[in-house]
């Protein structure tokens, strides 16, 4: 399968933002915006929904807390009852530090793992090239032509109207 991409290059991030906003408002599918530095407001201009990553953190952290408490309760209270200083076997305060650390460990690892998986940037995956100048001075807005409702000319016009320095068409093969 191939997809037909239109790439506009901009010298100024405000122009990029303007073009992205128009695409969002007119319902033109944006593949990505690529820039050498974080552009404030770009997520809103691209219509990107808030990240769901915090939910992964919450679930991971809660799992760490619950598992940490259960582990200690079971080992110290059930499987191998341990009398420490005459305190009850299921002494909650003693379990808190380990449960606290496991909360952080699980929350951190699950967040990092989910981020790598979802963004498809796990180690050894290699680098995708194609927008070289976006690592120094220019910003690129990548649009996709999905049906006949927009012609190539219209994409080019949209880019130029917002002050793009260059407009490129490209067919990309995706597996």
């Amino acid at each position, binding site marked *: 399968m191939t997809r037909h991409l239109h790439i506009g290059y901009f010298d100024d991030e405000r122009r990029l933002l303007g073009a992205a906003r128009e695409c969002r408002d007119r319902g033109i599918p944006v593949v990505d915006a690529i820039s050498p530095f974080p552009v404030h407001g770009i997520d809103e201009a691209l219509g990107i929904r808030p990240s769901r990553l*915090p939910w992964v953190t919450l679930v991971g952290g809660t799992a760490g807390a619950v598992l940490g408490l259960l582990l200690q309760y079971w080992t110290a209270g059930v499987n191998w009852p341990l009398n420490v200083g005459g305190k009850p076997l299921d002494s909650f305060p*003693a379990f808190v530090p380990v449960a*606290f650390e496991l909360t952080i460990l699980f929350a951190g690892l699950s967040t990092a793992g989910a981020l790598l998986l979802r963004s498809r940037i796990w180690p050894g995956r290699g680098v995708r090239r194609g927008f070289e100048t976006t690592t120094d001075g220019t910003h690129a807005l990548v649009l996709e032509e999905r049906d006949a409702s927009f012609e190539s000319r219209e994409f080019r016009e949209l880019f130029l109207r917002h002050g793009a320095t260059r407009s490129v068409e490209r067919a990309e093969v995706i597996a």
Partner: protein
Amino acid sequence: MSVHASIRFAPPRALMRGLLVIVFVCGLLFGLGLLGPESRERSMGGLLMGFVHAVSITVAGGLFLAVLRLSNARWATALRRLPEALAASLPVLGFLALILIGGVPLLYDWSHESHVLGDPILEGKSDYLNWFAFGVRSIVFFLVWTWLMRGMVAHSRRQDADGDARHRAAMFKYAACFMPVLAVTYSLASVDWVESLEPHWFSTAFALVTLSGAACSALAACVLLGLWLRKRGELRRAFTDDHLDDLGKITIGFALFWGYIWFCQYMLVWYTNMPEETPYYALRLNGGWGHVAKLCILLCWAVPFFVLMPKRARRSAAVMGRVAVVVLVGQATHWYWLIGPVVIGEHPAFGMWDLAPVVGSLALLAWGVLRRLSEAPIVPLRDPALEESLHYHC
């Protein structure tokens, strides 16, 4: 930018007069309490609660200010006048410090010779824990804090007038001095004022509990003050949801730190179970005080930690305002839990004698803060980082 340039805050006259009336009425009730032999200790204990709460808010305001300066934080530049106003209003509380010094015999067992003689531990501590040394130390703490915090605030205000870059460097120096000095002096002060109510007990984590709690209180005070000024109009454009979001994040951080340290101190005493340490918690976890302890953990840690976790909550003025009130009430409850068992007794009681001095101290603080806030433009006009702070995006 120029929209903010001319804005100064003028405290509403009726509010200022109302605050002074509250201070006056509470002062009368406090005086009345001192006359009764039954209520004398409780009134002075109430004054101590209000005093340490108010002092902690001002001093931690200075701490926030110093951290912002030392870390070169630009995001909060538009809000800097809020912690500045907290820090600059310390001197008005000096009056309460003098009352406390005068009331030492009502609160502290170590000030009675009959109590100290024959007790080898208290005899050994008597060179440090005595009325004269307590008074001298309290005054020295006040003078040192006032001097260093005034230095930061004064240079910040003078920068508004001449825009000289030298003020920034001077603020940096004062801030760099203030941080280590505060670490030592606040530790000693919280031992003097609160921990020495039980002179046999000791804890190296005590000042961490009180200082992290103070940071929570000061941040909550900044949030409330900022939201109020935004609603009135003075900070309408300068105080954005992004600032609110970040204040919420620091509040979560300090609430978590407070809970962490609070539990650390408790757990070590619980675990080792040594007779010289446990009476402190035995008194504070039995006879009804245990419920107060649970309430403290709920208000100071659980509510801010869980409620402020979602980004949407931290960006909502209604949620942040309510959580700030909860934190301030929670920290006041924590002071009550630390001090109350000694002055009130084995069972918690709560009445006019405890409440009036606390309300009076906080009203006095509010009056001082609003007055300080009106002395300078509501945003630091000539600070080079102001523009960036106004457009801050978190």
